[in-house]
């Protein structure tokens, strides 16, 4: 399985004029947003700003109300789109980990590889072990999720997503459900990923991480992108009043 990685001039994620409403509530009001191959984009903003909804629309966990989303040039919002195939190119990491509690760590990592990628048991296991090693949990192969700490569970979740050999990774507030002392280990894994050139879209409240690892920071508020740019600019000398106020609040 060789997925196209970084086609020339084609963004990994290209969101065009995206609208999303829940009933009468408009959560996204015309978003234009893209992530280039190899780029790490951190999306920040107050809760309720629509940043998680944007991320969830990208792999169609939420159905957009209007607009287009291209994954490496392929329209995932098109009625005929092979959504399962497109999703398998996007690794997704959730705030609440969402490991499969009835399966061992190894099976968590192999089940989709075997089913979706059609890999053999041996191959899937080998890839799983390699990715567990990558997140520093090779000794937890046979453990069950409930026996792991939150930080370990999230690292397993990252390894699970990586085992699909995705072209890009999306993180939906990956450290928000963690005890403070466990945040570091997860961020360290993400930092390594970024260093290895992984394309990443990260919705986060960790400003230090965005500053250090992000190639670009996008600030969202009330369903629109207020401003974006390099972290040094957006986080230290924001142009907009709303960004300034938000940054003051999160300290």
């Amino acid at each position, binding site marked *: 399985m060789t997925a196209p990685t970084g086609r020339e001039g084609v963004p990994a994620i290209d969101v065009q004029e995206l609208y999303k409403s829940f009933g009468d509530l408009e959560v996204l009001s015309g978003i234009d947003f893209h992530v280039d191959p190899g780029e790490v984009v951190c999306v920040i903003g107050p809760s309720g700003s629509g940043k998680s909804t944007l991320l969830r629309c990208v792999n169609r*966990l939420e159905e957009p109300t209007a607009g287009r989303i291209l994954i490496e040039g392929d329209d995932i919002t098109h009625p005929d789109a092979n959504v*399962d195939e497109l*999703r398998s190119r996007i690794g997704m990491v*959730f705030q*609440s980990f*969402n490991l499969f509690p009835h399966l061992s760590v190894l099976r968590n990592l192999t089940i*989709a590889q075997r*089913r*979706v990628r059609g890999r053999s048991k041996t191959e899937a296991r080998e890839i799983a072990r390699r990715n567990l090693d990558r997140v520093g949990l090779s000794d937890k192969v046979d453990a*069950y999720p409930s026996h792991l700490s939150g930080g370990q569970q999230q690292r397993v979740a990252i390894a699970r997503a990586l085992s699909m050999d995705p072209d890009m990774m999306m993180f939906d507030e990956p450290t928000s459900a963690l005890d403070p002392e466990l945040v570091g280990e997860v961020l360290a894994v993400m930092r390594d990923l970024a260093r290895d050139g992984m394309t990443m879209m990260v919705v986060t409240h960790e400003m230090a991480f965005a500053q250090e690892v992000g190639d670009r920071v996008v600030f969202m508020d009330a369903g629109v992108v207020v401003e974006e740019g390099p972290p040094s600019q957006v986080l230290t000398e924001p142009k907009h009043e709303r960004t300034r106020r938000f940054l003051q609040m999160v300290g």
Partner: protein
Amino acid sequence: MTKRQQQRLIRSILYVLFAAGVVGIALLADWETTQRNFFNGELARQMFPDVLTIAARNTILYTFLAFSFGLAFGLLLALMRLSSIAPYRWLSTVYIEIFRGLPALLTIFLVGIGIPIAFGTRWPTLVTITLGLGIVAAAYMAETIRAGIEGVPKGQMEAARSLGMSYTWAMVSIIIPQGFRIIIPPLTNELVLLIKDTSLLFVIGTTPASKELLKFGRDLLNTNANATPLIVVGAVYLMITVPLTQLVRVLERRNARSR
């Protein structure tokens, strides 16, 4: 007198009244006649081994068949009920409402006389029995299974779909296995109810070899004019149901540990 002493006094009086009641009933009863009619050792002995090799065997077999059918069909109904396709939902809802609302005896009876009329031939007894009991069981189990599936956190489906799994495969490998863990206790309840409901099967007619426990006991009651067979049969029912509920308690505890 303090409030505590008062309470203790009231409790003591209640105990005395309860004990007096039990003793009174025991004294009023005609023990000799009762024993002759309900605990006739000779008659009880004659029931063996048939009560186990025929009656209990049939009860277990019928329960197993109806439970398997009910589980499979109930799962289908539950998935229809959760489907995004409205006619599936309606169909399933109507089915569930009808067969939960009718007495099981009526349904079994209708299946028993309905099949020969509708299809012109008698179907094998085991098929009729499986359908008669299973049709009702499926309706109850469908609701239990639906609750189990809905009890699985939404994030599980999202995680599975995000990995590229199809809806069906996510259901089969991620959601349903977890749902069933949740519903082991209520499902056992259905099983125990089903064991007892096999006693309704007499309405579709039996041969000596196809009698289940209660029919077996009642026939002996009639031929001997003695109620001992009912006592024996009751004991056999308990021998089946009590270990079952205990087993489930163990499973439940183990399950709670592994989560």
